[in-house]
């Protein structure tokens, strides 16, 4: 097989592709909330509803601990992160197929499509984070320098989300089974990630498995910073970060290897 394609006179600049990403993100967000009365408010409704359910089920009935923080705030912190991840992956996985019209008709770097899905969830996250700030004030939780760790954790969450989404979206082009599998996997994934409960409540013998889930360190690290003003578990964070970086690199190169067949197979 020979692929000799020259770009020597392509005038399209990275700036134009960045613009395309912004436009597709906008299209995604506006499309999602147009003709809806509450609009972006729905982005907040989802974590609030889940927070309420978790508070009743896990805290009141299940008596799960929250390391001393107010349980609703504790759950909301994790849920805010979780929904960013799960919504991005959920809509990102099908993104190439959803946009098959433009995939089969114009050329542009295909990773823009799943990336636009992740970016569109950033807007949702911003709305959810605004409410989080209000909750922090309401519960009177103070902040210190370690609180900034939450930003690093979120950065890592974005990276991890991008990695997973690139991978699943490319695979979904070839096997449509990926999408339903991912939707089910996401439901289970929520419960094997310390979102509703702290890592300290996990039995000792299960912890090694938790370490293999990069989301564990991300959620735990964010909470220890913003809720407790404590440094994260460095060992846990280190493992998680290296796994995340490796995933993104592998996912990106896999995606680029597969993307020339997208239009033929989709």
């Amino acid at each position, binding site marked *: 097989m020979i692929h000799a394609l020259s770009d020597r006179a392509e005038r399209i600049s990275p700036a134009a592709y960045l613009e*395309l990403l912004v*436009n597709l993100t906008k299209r995604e967000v506006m499309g999602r909330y147009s003709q809806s009365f509450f609009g972006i408010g729905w982005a907040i409704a989802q974590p609030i509803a889940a927070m309420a359910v978790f508070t009743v089920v896990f805290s009141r009935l299940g008596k799960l601990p929250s390391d001393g923080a107010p349980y609703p705030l504790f759950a909301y912190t994790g849920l805010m992160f979780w929904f960013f991840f799960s919504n991005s992956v959920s809509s990102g996985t099908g993104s190439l197929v959803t946009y098959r019209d433009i995939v089969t008709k*114009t050329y542009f770097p295909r990773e823009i499509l799943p990336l636009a899905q992740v970016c569109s969830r950033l807007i949702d996250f911003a709305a959810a984070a605004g409410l989080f700030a209000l909750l922090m004030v309401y519960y009177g939780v103070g902040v210190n320098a370690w609180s900034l760790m939450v930003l690093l954790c979120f950065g890592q969450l974005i990276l991890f989300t991008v990695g997973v989404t690139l991978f699943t979206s490319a695979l979904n082009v070839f096997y449509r089974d990926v999408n339903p599998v991912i939707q089910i996997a996401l439901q289970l994934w929520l419960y094997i990630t310390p979102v509703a409960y702290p890592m300290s409540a996990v039995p000792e013998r299960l912890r090694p498995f938790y370490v293999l889930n990069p989301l564990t360190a991300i959620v735990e690290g964010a909470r220890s910073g913003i809720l407790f003003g404590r440094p994260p578990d460095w060992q846990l964070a280190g493992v998680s970060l290296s796994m995340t970086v490796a995933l993104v690199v592998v996912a990106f190169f896999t995606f680029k290897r597969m993307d*020339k067949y997208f239009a033929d197979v989709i």
Partner: protein
Amino acid sequence: MDLIASKVNRLRGHREEIHTAEHGSVDATMWALRDVSLDVPQGAGLGIIGRNGAGKTTLLKLVSRVTWPTQGSVRIGGHVVSLIELGAGFHHELTGRENVYLGAGLFGLTRRETDRCFDAIVDFADVAPLIDTPMKRYSSGLYARLGFAVAIFSRPDIVLVDEVLAVGDAPFRRRAIEALRGLIAEGKTVLFISHDLWNVRRLCTDILWLDKGQVRAYGPAAQITEQYMNEVNLAALGDGDAALQTQRTGTGEVRYVSVELLDAGGNPAGLIEADDSLIVRATYRADASIQRAVFQIAIVDVDTGVVITTASSAGDGPTGVAAAGAIECRFTHLALRPRQYVLRLSITDARQILPYDVLMAGPRFAVTASGGAGGLSGTEEDGVVSLPYQFFHRAGADGLQTVNRA
């Protein structure tokens, strides 16, 4: 320097293994394009013709880099914009304005670049009053118009057009063709797929004829259309008269056996220059002896209907018919506009009521503009026939009366 040098050898479809009881698995690979090598110079208008499944769209997809060749290579010198589907990137919930930016972004324009040509796009598409309305309220024609406008204003070097002009109304189609001709005049390269040979001839200097994934012919537009038309006619007539049989009615006592189109020199022709001669020669076979038969030949415009009917009773036609024979009808001055026409032939009894044979879709031919190599004169005129006319104009209020009296 913009040059598309494409050498697409053996582009193939998906490999599929067919399992049969006797042979086990058989490799049933389908090659969409194979051994297709050509150079398209900058500023060319290349028409791509061929039957469905010949590989035309695949070729454009290779040039637009939507898909990759399995073997071979494509070299592109310039910014490619493909109009494989108009408004493909548009979102129906967004307004026309937002979609212009979105669509232009898909073609590689930044916001600032789009700002600069925004008014021109809206003008061309003629959607100014609706530009802030969500696209879902647009008609499909408007949708296509805006899509086309965005594409041609995104400063392409190479434009790929795939049968998209089929949508939209006649005035839009004409403007679209004009715009594409303008691009070619500016030195841009246009690759144009259409089943409408007439549009291909209007736009293209060269034609690539694909057949089952291979190059059948590649050369000057006039020459290739002639070849293509001839083959289409031959295909319709040949093959054991299969096509002759399909749309055939009548009682069958007398049947046409063959129909030939000849030019003034007596050579078979599928393209006739306007105002030239057209000779229709047909042979027939009669199973019974018929006292008096009338042969009818009609020229039908594919779009608008019957242009003229002729009958042998009006001329030097045979009266009694037995066994076999031939007729010939000569149109000595074919005053038709450049379009595609089809012949309808029939044989009836003397009162022209009982049909012995009716051939609804006989051979086709196209009329080309007289003078020049079949190109289009600067001003385009619609219609089917050419009648001699003169125009008068006198300025002033009393001028009208003068004209009326004249």
